[in-house]
C-alpha cells in the first residue's frame, strides 16, 4: 500500500500532465513531443489521423534503417586518401653501394681452388665429350669428396621414357627406373625424384654426340643431385634446361657451404675495402670520402657501404633539386678480380632506402654498369596509412609473430626482413642449421656439407615449398608507412675517350699512390644521385568516417525524416518510463484486487470502507461495486455520470493543468 502510494507520488512528480492511462500518456506525448510526425496524428480528423499515423511509422522505420546503414558504414572504417606533390627539403635517402661480386677472387682463391678445378674438369667432360679420352691429364687428383657431397649429373634423354643418368666423374652410369618421370616439367614440379636408385645397371651410356642430333629436342640436361644425406636413397634431381644455370646453381650451393665456415671477420677482410672501392665522393658542394660510409656485411654482395644511413649521426638533408646538389660517386669494381663462376653479371649494385633500414639489394637494388655514368633522379613516393582498425598494417613490427633477425643490425622492421627471418626460422627448425644468406639467431650455426650433409636437399625442398612461403606471407605484415624511391635512370658512357687517360691516371694515383694506371673501363663507375624537381609524392590516409561524421549524419537523417534530435529520443525514453510506471501501478492494483477477491471469498462481503459508508448515506443509487478491475482511487469517478474523457477533453485538459503549473513555477 505504502509502496503504491510512493509510486503514484513518484509518477506524479515524473509526469506533469499526462493522464494515468496509456492512451492519455500517448496523446500527451504526441501533442507535446518535438518530433514532427506524432503531433499531426492527433491534430485532425480520423482520415488524416490514419495517414499521419502510417507516415510517422514509415518515417520512423526509414530513420532506423538509414541509421543502420550509417553505423555499418562507420564500422567498416573506410579511409580517404589525399595526395600531395611538390618539392620540399627532405632527408637524402640512404645509399647503399656494393659490388656485384662478394669477394675478391685473389683473396678467396685458396678456399675455392678445389671447387674451381672440379667445375672446370666437369665442364671439360661435358663440353668435349670424347669417350676414349676420359682419363685425361689432370695432374693433381681432384677432390671427389667435395664433388660427391653435391654432385652434378648429366641426364640423357634420348629415350624419353627411360632417361639415363650419367654421373660425370664415374664410369658406371645408372638408369633411372621406369617410374621416374623426368619429362613432366611444370614449374611447380620441376624436381624429379628418382625413387629406385638401387636398380643400377652396368650399362654404358652412348656417348653424347651433339652433331648427329636431328630432332630439335635437347638430349642432354644437367641436373644437381641432392640427397637427404650422403649415400642415401632419398635423392632429388634438380633439373635445369640450361647447363649455365645448373653450373651457377651448383657453384652457389658448394661455395655457400665452404664460405659459411669462414668467420665473419675473415669474410669482411676478403671483400672489397671502402678505400679501394669508393674513389671519389661529393655531396652537394661538400667533399666526402669513404670514411663517410658505414660498412655493413651483406651475405649476397660482401662488403656494402652505406652513405647517410643515419645510424650514428643526423641524416643529411637536401634542399635543392638537380644533380649539382646530389651525391656524386666514383666507384671501382675491379672486374678482373671477380669469382668467375659465382656471379656472371658485372657492375655495382646500389640501392636507395630509408635511414635505419636494412638494404635488401636482391629485391630493390639496381645495377650500375661499368664504364658508364649512371644518373638517378629520385622521387620519394610515400604512403602513410592509418593503422588498425583502418588497415591491417604494422607500425613498428612489434605485433608480428616472427622474430626479426635483422634487429641485430639495429634496423627498423620491414616486410623483407620479416620474410627472411621467417624463412631462416623455418630453416633452423627443419634443417637444423641456418642459411648462409640470412642472419643467425643465437646459438645456431650456418649450414655446411660436413656438419649437415643433407642441408642442400633440405634447403632446396624448403625453398620451393609453397606451403612454407604462404605461412610466411600470412604471418608478416607490411608497414604502415611505405616509402619508395622512384628512380629515373639514365646512362652515358664515362669517361669519354678524350678524358679517359687523365681521369684514370689521377684516380689510380690517389688510390694506390702509383704512377701506373691501375684502373680501366671495366671497373670504373660514376654515379649521380639527386632529387628531381618534384621530390615527393605523399599519399596520406585519413579516416573517412569519424564519430563527428557519424553523429552529424545520424542527426541529419533523424532531422530529415522527422525533425528530431537527441532530446526527442530522451522524450521517447521518458514516455517509456512513464508507461512502465503505469504498468507497475496497474499491476499492483490488479494484485491488490486479487487479494481483496480472495478476502471476499473468505468473507461473503468485503468490509465496507469509509467512503463506501459515506457513499451509502449520501447516494441513494449506490450499488455495491465489484472491486475487481481497478483500484479504488481510479475506480471512483470524481463526479458520477460524467462521460469518460474523450478525445476532445484530453486535448483541453493538459492545457488547463499546465497553465497553473507553469504559472506557479
Amino acid at each position, binding site marked *: 500500500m505504502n509502496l503504491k502510494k510512493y509510486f503514484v507520488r513518484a509518477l506524479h512528480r515524473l509526469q506533469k500532465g499526462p493522464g494515468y492511462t496509456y492512451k492519455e500518456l500517448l496523446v500527451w506525448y504526441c501533442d507535446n513531443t518535438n518530433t514532427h510526425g506524432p*503531433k499531426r496524428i492527433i491534430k485532425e480528423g480520423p482520415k488524416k489521423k490514419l495517414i499521419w499515423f502510417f507516415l510517422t511509422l514509415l518515417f520512423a522505420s526509414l530513420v532506423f534503417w538509414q541509421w543502420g546503414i550509417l553505423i555499418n558504414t562507420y564500422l567498416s572504417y573506410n579511409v580517404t586518401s589525399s595526395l600531395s606533390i611538390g618539392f620540399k627539403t627532405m632527408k637524402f635517402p640512404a645509399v647503399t653501394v656494393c659490388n656485384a661480386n662478394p669477394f675478391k677472387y685473389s683473396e678467396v682463391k685458396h678456399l675455392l681452388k678445389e671447387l674451381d678445378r672440379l667445375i672446370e674438369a666437369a665442364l671439360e667432360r661435358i663440353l668435349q665429350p670424347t669417350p676414349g679420352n676420359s682419363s685425361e691429364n689432370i695432374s693433381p687428383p681432384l677432390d671427389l669428396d667435395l664433388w660427391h657431397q653435391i654432385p652434378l649429373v648429366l641426364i640423357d634423354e634420348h629415350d624419353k621414357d627411360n632417361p639415363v643418368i650419367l654421373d660425370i666423374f664415374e664410369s658406371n652410369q645408372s638408369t633411372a627406373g621406369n617410374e621416374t618421370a623426368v619429362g613432366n616439367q611444370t614449374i611447380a614440379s620441376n624436381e624429379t625424384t628418382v625413387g629406385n636408385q638401387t636398380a643400377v645397371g652396368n650399362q654404358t651410356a652412348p656417348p653424347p654426340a651433339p652433331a648427329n642430333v636431328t630432332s630439335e629436342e635437347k638430349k642432354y640436361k644437367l641436373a644437381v643431385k641432392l640427397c637427404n644425406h650422403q649415400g642415401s636413397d632419398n635423392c632429388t634431381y634438380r633439373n635445369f634446361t*640450361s647447363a649455365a644455370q645448373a653450373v651457377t646453381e651448383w657453384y652457389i650451393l658448394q661455395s655457400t657451404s665452404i664460405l659459411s665456415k669462414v668467420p665473419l671477420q675473415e669474410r669482411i677482410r676478403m671483400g672489397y675495402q671502402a678505400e679501394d672501392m669508393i674513389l671519389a665522393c661529393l655531396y652537394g658542394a661538400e667533399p666526402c670520402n669513404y670514411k663517410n660510409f658505414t660498412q655493413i656485411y651483406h651475405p649476397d654482395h660482401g662488403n656494402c657501404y652505406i652513405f647517410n644511413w643515419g645510424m650514428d649521426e643526423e641524416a643529411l638533408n637536401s634542399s635543392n633539386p638537380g644533380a649539382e646538389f646530389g651525391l656524386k660517386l666514383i666507384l671501382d669494381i675491379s672486374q678482373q678480380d671477380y669469382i668467375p663462376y659465382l656471379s656472371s653479371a658485372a657492375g655495382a649494385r646500389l640501392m636507395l632506402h630509408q635511414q635505419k633500414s636494412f638494404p635488401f639489394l636482391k629485391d630493390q637494388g639496381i645495377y650500375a654498369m661499368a664504364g658508364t655514368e649512371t644518373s638517378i633522379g629520385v622521387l620519394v613516393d610515400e*604512403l602513410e596509412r592509418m593503422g588498425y582498425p583502418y*588497415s591491417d598494417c604494422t607500425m613498428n613490427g612489434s605485433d608480428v609473430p616472427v622474430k626479426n633477425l635483422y634487429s641485430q643490425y639495429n634496423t627498423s622492421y620491414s616486410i623483407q626482413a620479416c620474410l627472411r627471418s621467417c624463412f631462416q626460422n623455418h630453416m633452423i627448425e627443419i634443417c637444423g642449421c641456418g642459411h648462409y644468406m640470412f642472419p643467425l639467431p643465437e646459438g645456431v650455426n650456418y649450414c655446411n656439407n660436413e656438419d649437415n650433409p643433407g642441408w642442400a636437399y633440405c634447403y632446396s625442398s624448403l625453398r620451393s615449398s609453397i606451403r612454407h612461403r604462404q605461412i610466411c606471407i600470412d604471418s608478416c605484415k607490411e608497414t604502415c608507412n611505405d616509402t619508395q624511391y622512384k628512380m629515373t635512370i639514365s646512362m652515358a658512357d664515362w669517361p669519354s675517350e678524350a678524358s679517359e687517360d687523365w681521369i684514370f691516371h689521377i684516380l689510380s694515383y690517389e688510390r694506390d699512390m702509383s704512377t701506373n694506371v691501375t684502373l680501366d673501363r671495366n671497373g670504373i663507375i660514376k654515379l649521380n644521385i639527386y632529387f628531381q624537381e618534384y621530390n615527393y609524392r605523399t599519399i596520406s590516409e585519413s579516416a573517412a568516417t569519424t564519430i563527428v561524421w557519424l553523429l552529424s549524419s545520424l*542527426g*541529419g537523417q533523424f532531422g*530529415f525524416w*522527422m525533425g528530431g534530435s537527441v532530446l526527442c529520443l530522451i522524450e521517447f525514453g521518458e514516455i517509456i518510463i512513464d508507461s512502465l510506471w503505469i504498468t507497475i501501478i496497474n499491476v499492483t492494483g490488479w494484485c491488490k484486487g486479487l487479494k481483496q477477491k480472495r478476502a471476499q471469498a473468505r468473507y461473503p462481503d468485503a468490509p465496507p470502507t469509509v467512503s463506501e459508508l459515506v457513499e451509502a448515506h449520501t447516494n441513494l443509487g449506490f450499488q455495491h461495486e465489484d472491486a475487481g478491475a481497478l483500484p479504488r482511487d481510479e475506480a471512483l469517478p470524481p463526479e458520477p455520470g460524467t462521460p469518460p474523457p474523450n478525445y476532445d477533453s484530453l486535448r483541453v485538459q493538459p492545457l488547463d493543468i499546465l497553465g497553473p503549473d507553469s504559472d506557479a513555477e
Partner: protein
Amino acid sequence: AMAPGKKITARIKRTLPVKGPQAPTLSELMRWYCLNTNTHGCRRIVVSRGRLRRFIWILLTLSAVGLILWQCAELLMNYYSASVSVTVQFQKLPFPAVTICNINPYKYSSMKDYLSELDKETKKALETFYGFSEGKSKVRRSVDEGNSTGTDFFKQIPLLKFEDFSKTATDLRSGQKRKIEGSVFHKDSSIVNSGDSNDIIGFQLCDANNSSECALYTFSSGVNAIQEWYKLHYMNIMAQIPLETKEELSYSADDLLLTCFFDGLSCDKRHFTRFHHPLHGNCYTFNSGENGTILSTSTGGSEYGLQVVLYIDEADYNPFLVTSTGAKIIVHDQNEYPFIEDIGTEIETAAATSIGMHFTRSRKLSKPYSDCTETGADIPVENLYNKSYSLQICLHSCFQKAMVDSCGCAQYAQPLPAGAEYCNYKKNPNWMYCYYRLHEKFVKEQLGCQQICKDACSFKEWALTTSIAQWPSTVSEDWMLRVLSWDKGQKINKKLNKTDLANLMVFYKDLNERFISENPANTLVILLSNFGGQLGLWMSCSVVCVIEIIEVFFIDSLFIVMRRQWQKAKKWWNDRKRDQSGKPPEASDLERQGHDNPICIDEDLPTFNTALRLPLPQDNPLPRTPPPNYSTLRLETAFTEQLPDTLEVEQH
C-alpha cells in the same frame, strides 16, 4: 438490406468522412499553418507584434528557405563526385605476362626470296645517290648486279631529291629531273628549317585514279626517307605472304630462348606462347595464361622472377628495316594485347637487364562519375583484337575500319577485319596515297576515333625500374659462352658471341599490390543526411514539413478555393431560386450548425448516419467539453482579447 459492398463503403464513409479543411478562408488557413507548422520561422511571423518585426521575420524566413534551396542544390550537384582510396595489400601476386620479341622480325637469310629485289633496288639507289657501295664496307652477302628487272619499286614510289623547295626534283634512281605538280606537303616540315638544307629527300605518292592528285613526303635526312620508303615496300611484300609462312620465316622459341628460369626453377619453351606480331615477327609470351593457369610469385627479388638469356642473332638482321640490335619486351596483363611497337622496352645485348616491377591496380568509377568504359561493349567500334578492351585497341581498330572503308584494304600493322585483306599495290594500287591521307586525318583527330574511344575503367600497371649490368663479366665470359654454346650447340655448331646474347631478369621488387580505386563520395543515405542537416539547421524542418506544405498550400488551399466557388455558385443558385419563389433563406443557418466550424459544410448530402452524428445530444446537464477547435484559433482569440489595441492598430 444493403448490399455488402455498399455497407462497407458506407462504413468507410462513416469512420473516415471526407471533409474539407477546417479553416474557412485562405488567410485563416495560412494563419493556422503558421501557428501549427513544425518549421520555425513561420510561427514567428504570425506571433510577432509590430510591422518591422514581422517584416524582419518574413525576410529571415524567406532567406532561410533560399539558403536551404541553394545548399541542397549544391549537395545535389556534387552528388556524383568520387573519393580516392589507396590500399596496399601484401600478398602472393600473379606474375604478369612477359612478351619478348627480337627487334628484327624475320631472319634475313630466309627472307631473301622475298626481299632480294627490293634490297637490290635500295642498294642501287644508295649507290647512285650517295655514292655508297656496300662492297667497300662490310660484305654481307653477294650482290648480283642483275640490271634486268626492277625499277618497279621506283615506279611505284619514286624517291626524289629536292633543291631549295623549287618545283623541280631529281629522281634518285634515274637521275633525271622532273617537275612536281599537285599539292605538296611535307612529312616533317614543321621541324625542318627549310632555308639551310638544300638536300631534302622525299617521295611522292599519287592518286592512281587521278594522277594530278599527288602528295609529297619529305624528310630532312636520307636515313629517315630511305627507311620509310623501304618500309612501305616491305609492308607491301609482307602483306602478300600468308601467316603460316611468316611464322616459319621468323624465329622459333628455340632460336630465341637460350635459358629460362622462373621462381627458382627451370622453365623451357613450353612456358612460352607464340604470338605473331606483324611488325616484330614471332614474339613469345611467358605466362600468357593460355592453358588456364597463371603463375604467381610468393617471393619478391631478382632470384624469384623470370630470368632468360636471349639469343639475338645479330648477323641475320635486315639492314634496312631495323637499325638497332637487341630485344624488345613488354610486361602486360594476360588479357591485354601487347602493343610492343608502341610501349615496349628495349633490351641491350651483352648486358644483363634487370627489371624490377611494382604492381599497381587502378579502378575508376564508370558513368555517371566519369566517362570510361568497363568492357568496351558500349563503344561502337568493333574490337579487332581478341583481347580485352583498351583505348589503344579501340584507336587501332577504329583506324583500321576507316582504312577498309575508304581504301578498300587493311593496313598491315593491325589485325584484319572480317572479309578484308591486307593492302598491296598489285590489288590496290592506290592504297599508299590513301593510307597517308587517312593517317594524317587520324592524327589530326578528323576521323572521330579519339572522340568515340574512351579509356577503360580498370587497368593494371607494372611500373618498371630498369637497370643494366655488364654480362657476362670479363672473367666469367669464357666459361659462360662455352656452356651456353653447349646449351644451344645441339642445334648449331658455332661458338656464341656475347653480342648475340642478352640476359633479362624480370622480377617483383616487392609483393605489395597498390590498389587505387575511386569510390562514390556520396551515397543516398549521406545525401539525405546532409539534406536533413541543412533543413534542420536553417528551419528545423523535415520531410513532415514538406508534406505539410504540400498539404496546406496545395491540397487545402485548392479545396478552400473550390469550396468558395461552390458556395458562391450555390448562393447564386439559391438567390435565384429565392427570387423566383420568394422564400427566406435557411441554408446558411443549417450550415452554421456544422460540426466543427460555422461555414464548413459537407459536400455530400446528409445521410442518415451523418445526420445522426451532427448534433450532439444536449441532454447532458454537465458542462460539455468545449467544442473541438483549432488551438490556434483559441490562442489567437487570447491574443486579441489581451491586446485589442495593438491588434487594431495593426489592422488599420
